[in-house]
């Protein structure tokens, strides 16, 4: 970028913006891998506990933490979206950030839904049932 970002632009570029756009996706990936491999490995080892914690609770943590992370990401995306409300046609950086914010809001809602669905499974199904 050639121009120095103004104070308003702080949120519209940089790491925080990317957290708002991709946070949910990353959280979901972590959630699937963690929950799946915890379940898979613990059951394969024939135990319903992970280091003294009942397996369903461990898997539950692998739902709740990524879920909260996604909520945070959703808030950031919504904030960026509000901040870029006045994005002019010509201002490339603002226009680009605004589009990313829209993408971020919807993506986070989508990933939050999947994580919640995965969470429901944890509460309904006994972990090692085949």
């Amino acid at each position: 970028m050639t121009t120095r970002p103004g104070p308003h632009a702080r949120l519209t570029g940089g790491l925080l913006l990317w957290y708002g756009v991709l946070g949910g996706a990353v959280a979901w990936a972590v959630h699937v891998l963690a929950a799946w491999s915890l379940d898979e490995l613990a059951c394969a080892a024939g135990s319903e506990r992970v280091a003294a914690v009942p397996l369903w609770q461990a898997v539950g943590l692998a739902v709740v933490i990524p879920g909260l992370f996604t909520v945070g990401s959703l808030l950031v995306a919504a904030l960026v979206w509000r901040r870029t409300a006045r994005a002019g046609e010509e201002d490339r950086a603002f226009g680009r950030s605004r589009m990313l914010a829209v993408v971020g809001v919807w993506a986070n809602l989508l990933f939050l839904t999947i994580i919640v669905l995965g969470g429901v499974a944890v509460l309904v199904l006994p972990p090692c049932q085949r």
Partner: protein
Amino acid sequence: MSTTTTPPPGVSEQDLARLAEHWGERPSLRGWFSTVDHKKIGRRYLVTAGFFFVLAGLSALVMRTQLARPEAGVVSPQEYNQLFSMHGTAMIFLFATPMLFGFGNFLVPLMIGARDMAFPRLNAFGYWVFLFAGLFMWASLPFGAAPNNGWFAYVPLSGEQHNPGLHMDVYALGLLFLGISTTAASINFIVTALKLRAPGMSLNRVPLFVWAIVATAFMVIFALPALNVDNAMLFLDRRFGTHFFDPSGGGNVLLWQHLFWIFGHPDVYIIVMPALGIVSAVLPAFTRRGVVGYPLIVLSIVSIAIISFGVWVHHMFATGLPQLSYSFFSAASTIITIPSGIQIFAWLATMLLGRLVLRVPLLYVIGFVVTFVLGGFTGAMFALTAFDQQVTDSYFVVAHFHYVLIGGAVFPMLAGIYYWLPKITGRMYHERLGRWAFWLVFAGMHVTFFPMHLYGLFGMPRRVYTYRSEPGWDGWNLVSTVGSYLLAVGLLLVLVGVVHALRRGRPAPPDPWEGDSLEWATASPPEPYNFPVLPRVHSLHPAWDERTAESVRAGATADRILSDGRRTLVTSELDAHPERAVQMPESTLMPLVLAGALLVFFTSMLFAWYPVAAVAALAVAATIAVWLWPSRRPDEELGVSG
């Protein structure tokens, strides 16, 4: 905007002559083999992938002929195994992906206002590798040594004990060889789209087709290593007695399936995604408006790319993992329909709100929506594990994935072929011929594959070379076979249409459809340098935008013409601010030589001529060294400002 005779305002005859001199290639045999022009390479991808499609299609016709009647004897069981394996493998790996990459190669630089791909020589290399790998695999068929274990090659059936001979070595080595090409092309797409976009083309103005190609390229980069590792281990197991997949030696059979589907599931989207990109590119011209919901389609592209990685296990519901594990993957497999649905609704809204121009490309888009949605429905039925258990490995599955693959990839490709034919060849196609072809293809497709749902539900398993006469099977199988001949005639008419256009077609104007993206702002076919003046982009639809045309006229300054060498402009990744001009490589035989050396290497590995393989490996290393040897003048000498 430009033909060779009338230079655009602000560009002198001299500029044009110098551009032509730097970018043009003399028509000679050597020139033909050494070109690195993305348009020629794109065309070659399209033609070669089309050729492999014909071979795979002929294999399918032989299978359908065999299955027309119960207990027919057209082919032997061994031949049938090779036919469906080569059909599936070739359709997926040698036709669908390369065909779409062909579109990408031709279009991405034009759509983003650049003069070539970021790595033109790597691009040429990728094409030659694709060609050689494809020939390598097809050459095994006449010798009866073709892959014979289905396109997903499950161990232990593909292992040495159960499957001696070269068959599965051809599969493993062929796919490893081909993987080099796909990876090279993907890296190239990513860098090109990130760094060579025209000034002003910030992320919110990137054409949806380019978004789709880039997302696909990322998927390839992440997914393909799993397949490569899988195939390398398979080859080692078979040839050198390792035990990766052999439980008696401490290996794991399920490992093949996990790795295969970590690749294989995203691969469905690797095939469908760029095709959906074609739909988004074609629609504006035939609805006279921009696609509705641009950010939502971008969202859909990005999230499909991500989610598709998380759901491979849904192909393994018959293997006995814990219930909880399945539920994670079920949740995601079902939810992926949301982003796909978003795109469908956005296109329907575009059609409803726009003014429809019912030409052949739009017909294929409509055919695509109908077919793909039906395939989506039957796919959603698999998400019910109980139903999945019921129809696993029946013709129901064959019906479902042909609806998805032909509906989701072949129809959009056909739309794209008709749409861009004027740009690629400089000729218009014959409209009536095109319509006839469309209706035959559309009817043939449904007559072939719809009955498969039925006899699949009646219990006919897939991958059987023949069957006993059974009520509900015989008649419908005959219908399927008749349908496949209709489909073949339709596809033949498409080919006739292309040849007719090339020979007799009216010369095409630069922009026959009033398309919205930058490829329509060039001559048809484009000059070797694409744009006499590198455009500046002011909106999502630059070709509809007066300001873009104006900025080309007003901006015909030396730094946008760049006629002093083979040069193009590098811009920043997010906002496409101009950074500097770069020198692009000249044409060279090096890519062909390197791909040839690799062909020798893989062939000698196949036949276990290890000394030859060692020499070929040395030749590969030497060629790479020569290729990378710094021979270009450093940038300062060219007067390029940093």
